[in-house]
């Protein structure tokens, strides 16, 4: 669901196809009959944007099914490994009681200093919390902050520990998570699924039965999703909903199970881990923010540390990160330079920045390997770009973004004059993959090194070279400045030039190995002493490590584990631990403690992955020299658990971090060590997934009075460049999805210039059903005009039965689809499909709603 794996990840799809040959069942739930559907055992059509209704229907079906209620495996997994038994506070009100919203909904007013959060409402999540017993006595957080306690910061972390949560292992308490979710999903019946999703009831039930048959001790099922689950105003909730279902089915932390994110770019995982994203700093720590209590280092730690999970170590991660930023200048006295670190003002995400740019609030932009002129409400984006004082584009090809100042459709049509555009524009040519060293992190969190093979032509330089050489120039420009605001920059360490003996690939080129070394981390006192894993991190500045999650990928000066290419021999389970390096700690399946039962034995022989070997003789503790009792977690993978923590281990009363968890709590990054069916904190749009309609929808929400997510984002509301359709807008009666094709990539910069790829899909098209084509008098290959409230584009019609009419809530609704790879540059050119999309998005992650909106189609 939410992915067209065969088309967008064809090589990864090799494995589901192999499983299919071995008897696995492949189900594809999608608004289109795609190349994935073509080889699936079952294709189920679904209206774009209604996935939560479908998944909610599955949850309802599963927990009421005979199999789920008769096989003890499911209950054992749910009661012990999830928070099904946990009791939620009495004040919590569900959507059942409030007709589509949860308790805690309040108004949001935009702060004047950065009014680009796109929010009208937000949830105060206090009522979603677990019902807890009294907190243990001890030092108070506020006092410790005031006292500037630490390092070490253990007392601060300990002071954050809440009282124990109430539980009902019988799952009978009406306030326990299981009973709440049972009530919550009760209205998601197969009939309702058919009404909301347009998916035939029989096919829906077939999917549910297949899932039940293929889950349990002996079998597992996996879901694969991609941006068809993220590009919604409630995308995070779709994924959360799937995780909920998979937890109920015991399909998390086990081989062949899980919710797999199929990410879209070679290093998109890496660019999220090593965050070129505004909201986080290395290793998923939240960026210090003006909107949160992040005033000082200790305030930040108090607000962000989860004391009873592995995140209890956050002070170590943060201090090691600050050391990597500010080096020797970062001391305990100056809070490791925390105050120099910039804080965000709110939402500085892609769309928020363009909305601000359109209002002249963003003056300069560096665009490296991305092509926004063809993305997200393209017309508005290009208008925003024209407000810039300066724009740098660095890419392998002259992209639409580099050329929009003179070639954009509105410039070509004469609507906008080239001379009126006062932006100073630069284009720098880039190197290609074979022309430099570096690592990518793939969708499995695996870092893989690629090596230089050939020199790039002309002025092509690596993208790292660009920032490296700018940094050197700016270091020089600010050198000697006494202004307080320049101290941060002046203290930033910048040492990426190759060491003596290592030839730079290009004049002034960085050493990529040196960068990865800084990411991996080392002993501050001796940079040649690399850190072997995040367990070595300290919160006193003695360790320097940019990214705690990448710690261990470069465990010694000359040991780059990302460059390993040694696969397991055929016939073994195949974790391939010596191929590349996966974070965290080279683990291939996360939370894999869940692959064993409470006692630490594999759930079944067939699904053996990581288990407890009670007879294992451990060496004495290397630090204390004390003997360690027998027993160790062993298996095919690196265990995601305390290595010698026995299944019957109990939490230490005053323990923080992993010491606060027992031997049966596999989800060590969660505060209670359990998989969350109900999400008490962390999601801004509700603790349970709920079906809402996309912002632009042809129908009223059939499930609740609440039409859309009450807290979803609308940027530039009411602006002429972000017009939105009303519910059931007769001018835009059709549902449209945008998507990728196998033959092209993204906005086309990396494919439309390649003759071999361009000839395979040479022109933009719209796929529309035969019924709609007939109604509109459109024949195959006719030019059609597709319009949304934001704009209109031309495309050739591909008339097909692979997409078509659906019966939704008593209405016939036509579905159309367009690949979005085109623009005006390259060998294969076409209109910009994103000129149709809107600046609306998900409140958790600010992603846009590109998969479900409305349009009109007319013969040109």
């Amino acid at each position, binding site marked *: 669901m939410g992915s067209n794996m065969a088309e967008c990840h*064809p090589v990864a799809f090799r494995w589901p196809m192999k499983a299919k040959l071995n008897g696995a069942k492949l189900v594809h739930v999608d608004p289109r009959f795609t190349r994935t559907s073509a080889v699936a055992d079952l294709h189920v059509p679904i209206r774009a944007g209604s996935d939560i209704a479908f998944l909610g229907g599955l949850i309802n079906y599963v927990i009421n099914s005979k199999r789920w209620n008769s096989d003890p495996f499911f209950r054992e997994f749910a009661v012990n490994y999830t928070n099904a038994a946990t009791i939620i506070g009495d004040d919590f009100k569900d959507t059942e009681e409030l007709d589509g919203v949860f308790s805690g909904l309040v108004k949001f007013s935009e702060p004047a200093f950065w009014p680009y959060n796109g929010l009208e409402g937000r949830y105060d999540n206090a009522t979603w919390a677990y019902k807890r017993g009294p907190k243990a006595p001890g030092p108070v957080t506020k006092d410790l902050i005031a006292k500037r306690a630490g390092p070490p910061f253990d007392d601060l972390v300990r002071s954050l520990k809440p009282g124990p949560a109430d539980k009902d292992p019988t799952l009978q308490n009406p306030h326990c998570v299981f009973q709440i979710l049972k009530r919550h999903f009760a209205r998601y019946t197969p009939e309702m699924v058919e009404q909301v999703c347009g998916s035939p009831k029989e096919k829906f039930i077939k999917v549910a039965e297949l899932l039940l048959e293929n889950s349990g001790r002996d079998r597992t099922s996996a879901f694969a999703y991609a941006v068809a689950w993220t590009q919604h105003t409630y995308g995070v909730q779709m994924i959360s909903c799937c995780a909920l279902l998979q937890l109920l089915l015991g399909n998390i932390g086990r081989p062949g199970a899980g919710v797999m994110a199929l990410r879209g770019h070679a290093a998109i995982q*890496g660019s999220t881990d090593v965050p*070129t994203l505004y909201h986080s700093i290395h290793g998923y720590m939240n960026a210090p923010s003006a909107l949160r209590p992040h005033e000082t280092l200790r305030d930040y730690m108090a607000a962000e540390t989860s004391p009873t999970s592995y995140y209890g170590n956050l002070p170590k991660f943060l201090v090691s990160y600050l050391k990597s930023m500010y080096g020797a200048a970062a001391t305990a006295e100056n809070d490791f330079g925390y105050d120099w670190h910039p804080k965000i003002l709110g939402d500085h*995400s892609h769309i928020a920045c363009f909305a601000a740019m359109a209002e002249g609030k963003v003056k*300069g932009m560096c665009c490296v390997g991305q092509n926004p002129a063809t993305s997200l409400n393209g017309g508005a984006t290009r208008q925003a770009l024209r407000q810039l004082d300066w724009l740098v584009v660095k890419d392998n090809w002259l992209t639409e973004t580099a050329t929009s100042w003179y070639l954009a459709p509105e410039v070509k049509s004469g609507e906008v004059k080239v001379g009126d555009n006062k932006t100073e524009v630069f284009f720098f040519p880039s190197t290609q993959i074979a022309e430099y060293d570096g690592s990518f992190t793939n969708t499995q969190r695996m870092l893989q090194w690629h090596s230089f093979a050939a020199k790039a032509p002309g002025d092509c330089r690596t993208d790292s070279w660009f920032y490296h050489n700018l*940094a050197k*120039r700016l270091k020089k420009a600010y050198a000697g400045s006494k202004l307080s605001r320049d101290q941060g920059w002046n203290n930033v360490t910048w040492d990426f030039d190759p060491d003596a003996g290592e030839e730079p690939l290009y004049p002034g080129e960085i050493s990529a190995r040196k960068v990865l070394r800084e990411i991996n981390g080392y002993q501050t006192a001796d940079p040649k002493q690399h850190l072997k894993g995040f367990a070595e991190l300290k919160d006193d500045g003695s360790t320097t490590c940019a990214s705690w999650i990448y710690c261990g990928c470069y465990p010694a000066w000359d040991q780059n584990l990302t460059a390993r290419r040694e696969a397991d021999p055929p016939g073994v389970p195949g974790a391939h631990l010596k191929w590349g390096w996966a974070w965290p700690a080279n683990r291939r399946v996360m939370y894999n403690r869940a692959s064993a039962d409470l006692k630490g034995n594999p759930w079944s022989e067939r699904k053996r992955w990581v288990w407890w070997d009670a007879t294992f003789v451990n060496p004495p503790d290397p630090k204390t020299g004390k003997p360690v009792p027998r027993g160790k977690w062993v298996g095919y993978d690196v265990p995601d658990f305390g290595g010698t923590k026995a299944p019957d281990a109990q939490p230490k009363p005053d323990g923080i971090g992993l010491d606060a968890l027992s031997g049966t709590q596999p989800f060590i990054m969660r505060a209670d060590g359990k998989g969350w069916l109900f999400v008490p904190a962390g999601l801004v749009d509700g603790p349970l997934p709920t079906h809402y309609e996309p912002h632009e929808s042809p129908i009223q929400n059939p499930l609740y009075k609440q039409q859309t997510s009450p807290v979803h984002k609308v940027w530039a509301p009411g602006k002429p460049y972000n017009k939105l359709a009303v519910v059931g807008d007769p001018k835009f009666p059709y549902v449209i999805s945008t998507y990728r094709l196998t033959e092209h*990539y993204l906005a086309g910069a990396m494919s439309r210039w390649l003759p071999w790829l361009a000839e395979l899909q040479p022109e933009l098209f719209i796929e529309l059903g035969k019924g709609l084509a007939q109604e509109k008098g459109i024949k195959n290959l006719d030019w059609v005009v597709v319009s949304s409230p934001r704009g209109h584009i031309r495309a050739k019609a591909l008339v097909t039965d692979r997409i078509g009419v659906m019966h939704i809530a008593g209405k016939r609704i036509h579905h159309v689809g367009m690949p979005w790879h085109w623009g005006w540059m390259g060998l294969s050119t076409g209109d910009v499909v994103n000129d149709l999309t809107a600046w609306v998005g998900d409140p958790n992650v600010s992603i846009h709603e590109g998969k479900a909106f409305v349009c009109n189609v007319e013969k040109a």
Partner: protein
Amino acid sequence: MLVGRRDFLRLTASAGAGTAIGGLVGLGVTLAPAMARAQELRIKDAKTTPSICPFCSVGCATLIHTVDGKIVNIEGDPRSPHNEGTLCPKGAAIYQLHMNPNRATKVLHRKPGAGDWEVVELEWAMDRVAELIKKTRDETFIEKLPNGKLVNMTPAMFALGGATLDNEFNHVCQKFWRGLGVVAIENQARI
């Protein structure tokens, strides 16, 4: 030699059923198997460098063959547990990412309001961009918000891109901008 016999039998059959013309055998010509004329293996004597596909996130391993520093072939690395030597059409076309006459190789500059690009020197362009970054930073830097909160940042510059680029780039990029106090750092992962 199974093949030869098959061909021989077939020829005999066709001759038997054929006409006078058809029955004539070829002069010095046979349809029996033969070595084709030498076809030089393109990657003979090539250097092999391990690499990774730069397209989607599957992380297929590739092998780059170069002769005298020039790329002659790129194909899947059969050792990889991800792709076992296979590739998709984009992966199979990586060669053309490199060996492509359409590649941009020069630095271009457009002055404000100008109607055309100018080809400029790389070093000059870098100096100019550094100058613009400093100017914008100095003009827009916020040390404290009106409410007194220390923020040490500027929202007026926007850095975009990174998901198609290396981890090392991402580190250098975010360190550069965060070091300068620029927080609006984004990449394709957002959209």
